């Protein structure tokens, strides 16, 4: 039952990830951490880090969470459920591209969703920040990583690895 529910959540979340890969985070956090308590805040944030440092899209973090929740089967099912809605949507859109592109319903609803997901992501980041930024050094690492990723072209993967090294040295 847990596995079915887990897969269903991933299917819904991936079908609603509009405006960037990170948009899935607020939904996943609500369902997996707050509602069903399958993961702690800490495990969730570690999953994001793993999704970021592994090759491929952020979606890979779902395999990590799937493994944590339901073992190997959970990891494999997580990836299938994450990709399934995308495959269906793309094969349909590729066929009816021009109708889709001109569709007033799609365009105007997306215009509402795109700014809204930024607000959602901000709310989740604050609650994760509250759980994670507990002292001077963690604050410092967060501010440095924000500035480096936002204002330089350095790959976030290196920033995360660097922060891991900093963590090992500091604590």
């Amino acid at each position, binding site marked *: 039952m847990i596995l079915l529910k887990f897969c269903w959540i991933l299917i819904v979340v991936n079908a609603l990830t509009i405006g960037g890969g990170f948009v899935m985070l607020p*939904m996943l956090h609500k369902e997996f951490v707050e509602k069903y308590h399958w993961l702690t805040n800490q495990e969730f944030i570690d999953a994001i880090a793993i999704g970021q440092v592994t*090759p491929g899209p952020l979606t*890979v973090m779902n395999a990590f969470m799937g493994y944590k929740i339901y073992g190997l089967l959970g990891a494999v099912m997580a990836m299938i459920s994450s990709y399934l809605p995308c495959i269906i949507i*793309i094969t349909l859109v590729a066929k009816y591209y021009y109708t889709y592109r001109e569709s007033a319903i799609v365009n105007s609803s997306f215009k509402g969703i*795109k*700014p809204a997901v930024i607000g959602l992501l901000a709310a989740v980041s604050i609650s994760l920040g509250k759980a994670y930024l507990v002292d001077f050094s963690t604050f410092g690492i967060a501010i440095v990583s924000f500035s480096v990723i936002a204002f330089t072209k350095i790959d976030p993967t290196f920033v995360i690895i660097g922060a891991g090294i900093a963590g090992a040295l500091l604590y």
Partner: protein
Amino acid sequence: MLTFFERELVEKHKWLTHDEYIESVAIGQMTPGPPIVNTGICIGYKLRKIKGALTTVVGQAFTGTVLAILLAIFYIKTKGNVLLISIMKGVGAAVVGLLLSIIYKMASKTIKDYKTALFALSAFFALAVFKLNPIGLILASGIFGLIVYGRRTR
């Protein structure tokens, strides 16, 4: 990743024309689902229909998934290890910084007038203060988008 796709697929192997590539990127960005995933599937689909789409998925997800599973095994086994806890403390703080920078980048691209700002702020408060469900909030903001922008695009 997208510039890498372009160099490999368009310039080196000439499997796609530049226009087809641009169209795939656009489709990836305007369809539900993570954009990189969707762009990849779209390119696969253009090349070999559904077989191509499935092959792309396997190619794109395989290495990362295997690595994520190995890391998960490692993560569960070493739980409580002092060194790992301190590494993850630094990593977690960096992820918070990463999220903030993503928000900053998305906001500077998307939030342009008072309407878009209002959408973002209401979603923020609905989740942060009223603890509403993000899935419901995304659907609701789509409906509000239809109401606000729907009439003018027609």
